[in-house]
């Protein structure tokens, strides 16, 4: 899966050096050093990303693909350079397969509206899993309403793993699209995406992967995976908000009608007839988020500099340590105990609502997410209104876990 990536450097992972790259980590919150354990919601940005954006805005900004003047060409070079950077990061076969979008949500909606909506017929089926984020549920429900297609849901077990046999049984000749997360945002489960895709392809379905939670933790090679579409967000990968990527196989993208109309996506416009631009521009109407793309490219440089496998190994150590320490605290129940997990520790504490837990942790400088994590069906499945979720990034270390444990003991003290 990692064929396109350099192997992790042999030197030990220097988390202190990594932390120093992230200026925001020096913040104090309510008088405590920040323990940022909410990277699954949005990661922080290293100085290299902030600097790349500032350099671009300071020296190179103009509109792209338009002007003959120097700045426009510099901006175009920066933007298209970022596209090539993304292509390499996910090993797409061509930059024509890299569509810049606002984020994962927009990427999935683009597939739903531009690929699924024109091609689905009443009775066709879209198959998703029971652990999906709302962004991989609602766009399909919308397209079902628009086309008469039917949404099917493959179940998960109590550990939060996909029931693979049940998934296979739900695949049918009517299945046109399979939508699945690579990593669950609420549970941390890593899904066997390659096997899911193989089975879907055997059934003649096209697969859309929600990669938002995967790209920061797993080397992603879209060709090795066999993904037809793969969407992810910049801001969970140490890049800016408002920029994300939809990868699509060129053959599929070429057949898709434009999603939004406007500038940049056309070749010629007259009131009688408009001809559309080539890929990828045909699917990118309007002036794009240029500095966002530049920032995302810098984030990918940064991540590959650390080595994504080295980051993943570091996070895995933290996850194991945090899991062991939390289980020692009375009343803690883990939600999501899959054998294959990345970065996410979702839990509840008996007798304490996650919202109260979040407030008390915040008062101690510990940032965790509390709520339904945009995965209400997952909460319903586990019979909880909400969970608290600690999630790890490349910059977390043992001090963050210690702060979390201290904070949770404070919760017990208050609610004693």
């Amino acid at each position, binding site marked *: 899966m990692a064929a396109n990536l350099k192997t992790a450097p042999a030197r030990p992972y220097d988390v202190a050096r990594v932390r120093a790259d992230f200026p925001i980590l020096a913040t104090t919150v309510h008088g405590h050093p920040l323990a940022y354990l909410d990277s699954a919601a949005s990661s922080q940005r290293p100085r290299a990303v902030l600097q790349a954006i500032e350099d671009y805005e300071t020296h190179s900004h103009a509109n792209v693909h338009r002007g003959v003047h120097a700045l426009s060409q510099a901006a175009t070079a920066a933007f298209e350079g970022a596209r090539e950077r993304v292509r390499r990061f996910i090993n797409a076969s061509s930059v024509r397969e890299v569509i810049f979008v606002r984020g994962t949500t927009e990427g999935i909606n683009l597939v739903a509206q531009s690929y699924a909506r024109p091609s689905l017929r009443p009775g066709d089926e879209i198959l998703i899993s029971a652990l999906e984020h709302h962004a991989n549920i609602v766009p399909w429900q919308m397209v079902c309403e628009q086309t008469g297609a039917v949404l099917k849901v493959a179940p998960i077990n109590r550990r939060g793993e996909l029931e693979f046999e049940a998934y296979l049984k739900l695949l049918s000749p009517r299945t046109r699209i399979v939508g699945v997360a690579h990593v669950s945002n609420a549970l941390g489960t890593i899904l066997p995406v390659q096997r899911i895709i193989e089975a879907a392809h055997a059934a003649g379905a096209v697969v859309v992967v929600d990669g938002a939670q995967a790209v920061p933790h797993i080397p992603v090679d879209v060709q090795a995976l066999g993904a037809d579409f793969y969407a992810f967000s910049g801001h969970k990968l140490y890049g800016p908000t408002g920029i994300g990527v939809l990868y699509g196989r060129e053959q599929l993208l070429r057949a898709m009608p434009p999603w939004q109309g406007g500038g940049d996506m056309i070749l010629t416009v007259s009131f009688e007839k408009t001809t559309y631009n080539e890929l990828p521009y045909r699917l990118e109407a309007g002036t794009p988020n240029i500095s966002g793309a530049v920032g995302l490219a810098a984030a990918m440089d940064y991540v590959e500099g650390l080595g994504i496998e080295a980051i993943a190994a570091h996070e895995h150590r933290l996850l194991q340590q945090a899991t062991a320490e939390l289980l020692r605290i009375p009343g803690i129940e883990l939600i999501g105990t899959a054998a294959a997990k990345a970065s996410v520790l979702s839990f509840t504490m008996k007798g304490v609502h*996650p919202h109260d837990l979040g407030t008390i942790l915040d008062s101690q400088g510990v940032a965790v997410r509390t709520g339904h994590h945009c995965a209400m069906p997952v909460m319903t499945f586990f019979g909880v*209104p909400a969970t608290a979720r600690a999630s790890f990034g490349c910059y977390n270390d043992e001090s963050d876990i210690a702060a979390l444990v201290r904070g949770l003991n404070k919760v017990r003290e208050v*609610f004693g």
Partner: protein
Amino acid sequence: MQLQDLYRDLILDHNRHPRNFGRLGAPARQALGHNPLCGDQLTVFVRLEGEKLADVRFEGSGCAISTASASLMTEAVKGKDRATVGALYDQVHALLTEDGAQPDASLGKLAALSGVREFPARVKCATLCWHTLNAALGEGSATVSTE
């Protein structure tokens, strides 16, 4: 920001042992309140005798602030007439949202909620029950949401 201002003993006690917890059957009015942000959900039941709130109960699940606020609310409004309850609502709302608002003596135990103001993310937890009560007192049954 002081944690002990938010989680006062009275709040914790009403969270652990909510008063007037349960349902009222017809012909009581009821309304469902929902905070989609945190999943809090509660139903408020009111039995009116003329203008008087003869009985008030609530049920549902929520955080300590929303549970305690609902419990304190039912104690405070039971037996009062609509006009008095309306005035109380305004006072509680001011206490929870207006900088420098001081609890009036007439608020009684509800004054324990004054610490919530320092935690803006939690104000909706405390106001949910009051919005729901308002909906129950309105025409017919209703659902309210904090978002």
